[in-house]
């Protein structure tokens, strides 16, 4: 059976059993830490197995407070600023909070680039070189079987993940995702750098680089 986030798409796909949930993208099982809600979604999905025939498309019957956007708030929806701090220094500061998260929670979503956080300043210099238009920008820790643009995206993902987890330590408890996005894109030097990076990549005629730009900030 499947969970559906876009009912109109599921109506066309006609899977054998589907439960449509009204939650934002990224949250098919409901809110973080809400065990009851997550169990309710699972229970209603598993109940679909009782149906003698299909296709079955049912709407989630649990309580839900509809607030906020259906997906992540994007950079273009947030006023940019130009924080007066070197990005690499900001990354070093964020890493200290990230390490508190790691010690407290024992888990992290950082790790797709393969570069350890203690060397993320080098990633920043790599991104700044690309954003500045340096044609042969590269990073010495890029694996030989990973092209430079894929590696760039993975580096961006790791930096974003570290900032998110640092914010979970420093930000208000249970901060709404859209407020986290406003902080990241509106108040951090990294957010400003990623906007410049996006703009540089989007200048290219190469569709792959334009897609990459769209996947970094939009």
């Amino acid at each position: 059976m499947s969970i559906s986030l876009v009912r109109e798409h599921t109506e066309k796909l006609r899977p054998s059993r589907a439960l449509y949930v009204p939650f934002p993208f990224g949250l098919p099982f409901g809110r973080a830490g809400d065990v009851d809600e997550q169990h309710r979604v699972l229970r209603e999905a598993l109940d679909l197995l009782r149906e003698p025939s299909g296709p079955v498309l049912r709407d989630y019957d649990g309580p839900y407070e509809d607030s906020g956007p259906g997906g992540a708030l994007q950079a273009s929806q947030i006023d940019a600023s130009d924080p007066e701090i070197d990005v690499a220094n900001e990354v070093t500061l964020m890493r200290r909070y990230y390490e508190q998260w790691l010690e407290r929670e024992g888990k992290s979503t950082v790790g797709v680039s393969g570069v350890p956080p203690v060397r993320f300043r080098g990633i920043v210099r790599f991104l700044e070189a690309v954003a500045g238009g340096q044609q042969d920008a590269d990073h010495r820790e890029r694996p030989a079987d990973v092209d430079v643009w894929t590696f760039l995206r993975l580096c961006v993902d790791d930096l974003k993940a570290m900032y998110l987890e640092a914010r979970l330590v420093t930000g208000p408890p249970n901060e709404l995702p859209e407020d986290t996005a406003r902080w990241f894109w509106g108040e951090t030097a990294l957010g400003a750098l990623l906007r410049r990076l996006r703009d540089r990549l989007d200048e290219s005629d190469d569709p792959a680089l334009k897609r990459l730009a769209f996947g970094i900030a939009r």
Partner: protein
Amino acid sequence: MPSLDRLPQINRTALLTRPVEVHHDTPFAPLAVPLSEARLAIVTTAGLHLKGDRPFTAEDGSFRVIPSSAGEAELVQSHTSIGFERASQARDINVVFPIDRLRELVERGALGAVAANHYSLLGAQQDSTRPAAVSGTELAKRLLGEADVVLLTPT
């Protein structure tokens, strides 16, 4: 996701114009064993994988194996889309990959077992048929042997 009629126009248009396969029939198989005896596997398009496993790249149709013994601390996400918020997933992987919730169902006797492996693919691709075309046959073969129920989850 909130229904399309409540989204901003730009989001509504993007989703309504996205190519989606239209199926006119639906294979349907009743559950062969009681749920309390069934093995359940998750197949997610959240782009999750074990740390150290090969990250997903753009328009990647391959799959990753996530052993059911893996804990949250062993997982990362290399999804290429930024259209979904990730802070909640960082706090609690169960919002997209309910591994702890499934284990609790097994402990209560409501579910037989978590299958030996879960599987992860990359969603939000321009060609939504690619993952099935590249990985569908192999995944189906594995799942037929490993699970009685498959929970397909988006992100």
